[in-house]
């Protein structure tokens, strides 16, 4: 990226742009042009897909737009690194279908509902502590711990180890930015960092932990996700060591930063739009639409990338085999052709066709119903306690074009205005 990336008004990848929030004006210009823009990136570039309909097209045509070639992030990984790091998210059918089925059962809407009371107990405890303390950093006190505690419970991680995995997860979040606070050999790591997810030694520690759990569950299966994966393996289904550890890693990580981001932006939106929170309090039936609106508003994952498997055409633009194609959910979720008044936070919005979980297709977020449950239950518990939020600091935003992260934002519970 050249030195003028931040001032070039067509650039949407310069990470520092995102310190001020999503560069919506730039995306609006991309949506307004009739074709796709070729966006320079490092020594190459990608087709920037910004409209809702075009994102849907790419997302729903996985034979044309592959997840297994190069990488699903903007930059390509070298072949050995891609092989070592490949998880569900970087595969195409039939590998994808096989791996996804190993975990799909636990995440169906029907089965996710069984976790409601667990999620509610965790949310209630965090909110009670938040109010008892008179507020504080919302990310640290509520948004971050809720999803990690939920997924660790589902995986079957014993409570005494939860703090360690939370610590690992926090180091991984660092690995998505450009500052790593731990040395390459932390946690006894000897693997080349290139071969580890997020180039982080914390990934090595997470792999080791996952391997230990696998061995314990082999001899003593429980009713948890790790046991299900181990059983699938013993029942002759195909899951390799590398697939297992990348799956464990993905399950620990994928739902954390994302759900935390949704809950952080959700709190900011409710604090900034108290009349919308009033609507929810007046009519609890709006919890569902408010949840979807928070997801649209937050768009925690701002893009995913695919790679064209053949010459094709989209929006009158010729795409060549091998070209990178990047779906900007951050833009599709503000597409004025689909969402009326897209920059308004509307807790009762009827249109729920947002792409926070991707634009459809086989990679649609595995945890979508879990994330929805977490946000909805949190809203319900806030409503039950009549918690109104007042934002008392500016958010500290992540320097990232990928996750719409909030590192910290102070909130205070207040009385109804």
């Amino acid at each position, binding site marked *: 990226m050249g030195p003028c990336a931040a001032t070039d008004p067509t650039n949407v990848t310069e990470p520092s742009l995102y310190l001020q929030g999503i560069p919506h004006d730039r995306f609006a210009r991309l949506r307004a042009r009739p074709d796709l823009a070729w966006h320079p990136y490092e020594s190459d570039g990608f087709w920037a897909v910004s409209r809702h309909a075009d994102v849907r097209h790419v997302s729903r045509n996985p034979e044309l737009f592959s997840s297994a070639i190069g990488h699903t992030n903007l930059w390509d990984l070298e072949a050995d690194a891609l092989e070592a790091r490949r998880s569900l998210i970087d595969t195409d059918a039939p590998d994808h279908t096989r791996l*996804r089925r190993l975990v799909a*059962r636990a995440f169906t809407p029907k089965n996710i509902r069984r976790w409601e009371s667990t999620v509610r107990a965790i949310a209630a405890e965090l909110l009670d502590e938040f109010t008892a303390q008179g507020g504080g950093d919302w990310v640290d006190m509520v948004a971050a711990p809720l999803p990690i505690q939920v997924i660790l419970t589902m995986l079957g991680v014993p409570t005494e180890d939860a703090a360690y995995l939370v610590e690992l997860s926090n180091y991984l979040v660092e690995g998505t930015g450009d500052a790593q606070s731990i040395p390459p050999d932390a946690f006894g790591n000897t693997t080349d960092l290139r071969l580890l997810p997020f180039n982080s030694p914390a990934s090595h520690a997470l792999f080791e932990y996952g391997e230990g759990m696998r061995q314990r569950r082999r001899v003593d299966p429980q009713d948890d996700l790790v046991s299900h994966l181990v059983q699938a393996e013993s029942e002759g289904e195909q899951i390799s060591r590398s697939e297992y550890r990348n799956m464990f890693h993905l399950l620990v990580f994928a739902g954390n930063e994302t759900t935390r981001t949704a809950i952080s932006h959700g709190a900011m939106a409710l604090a900034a739009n108290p009349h919308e929170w009033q609507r929810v309090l007046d009519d609890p039936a709006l919890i569902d639409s408010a949840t979807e609106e928070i997801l649209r508003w937050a768009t925690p994952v701002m893009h995913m990338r695919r790679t064209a498997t053949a010459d094709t055409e989209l929006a009158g633009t010729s795409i060549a085999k091998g070209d990178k194609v990047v779906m900007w959910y951050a833009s599709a979720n503000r597409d004025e052709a689909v969402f009326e008044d897209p920059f308004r936070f509307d807790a009762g919005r009827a249109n729920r066709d947002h792409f926070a979980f991707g634009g459809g297709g086989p990679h649609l977020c595995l945890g979508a119903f879990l994330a929805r449950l977490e946000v909805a239950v949190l809203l319900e518990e806030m409503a039950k306690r009549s918690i109104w939020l007042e934002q008392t600091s500016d958010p500290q935003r992540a320097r990232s074009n990928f996750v719409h992260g909030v590192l910290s934002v102070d909130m205070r519970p207040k009385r109804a205005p």
Partner: protein
Amino acid sequence: MDLGEGLVPVAVDQGLCVGGGICEMLEPAVFELDDDTVISSVIGDGLLPRSRAEAVVNRCPAQAISIAEQEQ
């Protein structure tokens, strides 16, 4: 066969299904995920009013559901 007004038969391509369970959530009387394989299949007569059939076809992330336009 007379399908009644506006009712259409739906079918699942089990090779494509990724087991997300959206069909089962939307239309529990017509779709069921197998407990072991986590693959959806059509249960009962598999008939839905066309608009609801189209909705579930559109919501299935894997394009595994289709409206089976049967030869009469």
